[in-house]
């Protein structure tokens, strides 16, 4: 077989890829240039050199690209390993930090509970001022929790000390809501049930107004203007009881 137009001399064949070009060339069995029966023109030789150089360059670039990809793959594996190690380290740090924060929070909560208990104890002080006479100087707002603590502490103290009188000094209580007033009434009733007497003293006019407007029945309780009056009454009643 012979090429219709010699592919060695045809400039259009330069645009063929190397594989197609070589196939075309090897198929040309009757080519006088290949058989050596005709001299190879200089242009053909230069064209072949150009083609070979280009092929060599492309091969070099492709080999380089393969090495680059191999390197990238290796590097990616290393990076993944490093990332895994980093994540593990960060997880460890996070765990340790969370544990430390947890312990710190627990300690703070314990401290808070202790402080609350101390505040409660300070909020409901019970003083034995005289034999059989207990005084509760109350200061600030009387909320349900405080009233609850007050009731328990007072009844316990009354029993333990066999007290006859419990003086609830409200001089330091600026206001009283319905719930606190009701609670105060219940405390006084509980005191009576234990065979003792509850005396309220130091009620401010604002407190009295509130209690009256709310309709809480405090008039059945013994009240005095001041702590001094309350103590005087306790002494007088004690004497009367002794005489009797």
């Amino acid at each position: 077989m012979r090429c219709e137009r010699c592919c060695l001399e045809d400039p259009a064949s330069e645009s063929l890829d190397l594989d197609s070009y070589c196939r075309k060339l090897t198929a040309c069995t009757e080519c006088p240039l290949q058989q050596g029966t005709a001299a190879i023109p200089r242009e053909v030789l230069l064209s072949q050199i150009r083609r070979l150089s280009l092929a060599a360059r492309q091969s070099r670039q492709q080999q380089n690209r393969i090495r680059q990809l191999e390197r990238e793959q290796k590097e990616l594996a290393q990076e993944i390993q490093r990332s895994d190690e980093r994540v593990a380290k960060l997880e460890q740090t996070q765990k340790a930090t969370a544990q430390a924060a947890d312990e710190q929070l627990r300690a703070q909560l314990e401290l808070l509970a202790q402080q609350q208990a101390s505040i409660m104890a300070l909020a409901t002080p019970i003083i034995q001022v005289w034999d059989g006479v207990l005084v509760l100087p109350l200061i600030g707002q009387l909320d349900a929790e405080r009233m609850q603590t007050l009731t328990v502490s007072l009844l316990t103290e009354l029993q333990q000390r066999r007290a006859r009188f419990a003086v609830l000094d409200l001089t330091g209580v600026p206001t009283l809501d319905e719930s606190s007033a009701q609670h105060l009434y219940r405390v006084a009733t509980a005191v009576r049930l234990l065979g003792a007497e509850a005396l309220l003293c130091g009620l401010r006019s604002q407190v009295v107004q509130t209690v009256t407007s709310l309709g809480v029945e405090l008039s059945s309780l013994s009240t005095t203007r001041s702590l001094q009056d309350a103590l005087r009454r306790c002494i007088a009643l004690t004497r009367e009881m002794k005489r009797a």
Partner: protein
Amino acid sequence: MTQVGNRIATASIVNDDPHAAAQEAIRELTDQLGAPPSIVLVVFSADFSAQAVRDGIYRELPASSVLVGCSSFAELGPDGALTHSVTALGLQLPGYTAKALCTQGGTDSFAIGQQLAEELLQPKPDLLLLFPDVLTLNVTRLLRGLQAQLGTDIPILGGAPADNGAFRQTEMICGSQILQSGAVALALFGPLSIHSAACSGYTPVSVPLRATSIEQGNVLLELNGRDALSVYLELLGPRRNEMPAVTIEYPIGVIRRTSGKTEVQTDLVRAVFGIDEHRGALVLGGDIPEQAELCILSATRPDLLSGTNAALQSILSAEKGSGSESDLVLVFNCMSRKVILGPRYKEESAILSSLVAPKIPRFGFYTFGELSPVARTTQHHESTFTVAAIRFHRAT
């Protein structure tokens, strides 16, 4: 458009044999340029011997060619960011002259800078590409020495040669000379214009701290009157257990207060290169001003990539303003960014590829410190992405 006559090409070759890689890189440059380059800038993996790289290059290049290069943490070339490669930039710039120069080092970095500049006074270069070894020199002071002689208006670009992250030994090439300390430089003479930008992407993660005691410019002894290492460790919190490796993620930034606003000065980010436990000091990669207000910086991977994007956008807008396209883009990027970005480090070069036209050659490497102008004066940066777009004006 590049005027006829100026030819620029880059090539990156990955090969375990540095001699073969260097040889192949020059062959590739020669093929692209149509003739061997007259000026070659080469960066190569720190795993390779500089001697093998140099020999491979001169196997393909005439001895008269100007050659300057250095070892790197990773390379940046036509195929993006690579490791374990020899990456070369080849230039044929008719009408321009180039000079390779070097200094073997010494103890007074400022004096070395001055000494280097003396070789460049008549005439002064239009661009200086500088590669100073940060392991044996104080780069901030070397730069000041150079600028004291040359003036601050001459653009100086470059980066500190790197090793594989061990901070033990770097190598440099200056013509046939191999150096393991000191600095190498390539001076270019001829009309050119440069747009440069530097951005780190880091943000403050601590309260402002006053540098109350500094020694030799870069040894930070005290912060707020307490020993600097203790303060730094305290602020690291539980991550102090990862010292000293973790320092790469927490560089130091200098706070700039302008009209009541507080911002981190982008031109002054300092990496913590080492610690002196005995003295409770932090050894920084570059100098910081005495009594400066500092803060500890940190960045997520997206933060770093935004920094890269911001620097490139700044170049593009400057280019747009000048109405001319660049002939070459140079990137000098801190190795710490590659470490933090981990498997995503190629995203930085992907941003570069997406913003810079493919026909514009790009070249650079991951450094131990960067040199790039900010407001027309070259500064020593750390942990920063620096980029410069160059346009050569003359052709013969």
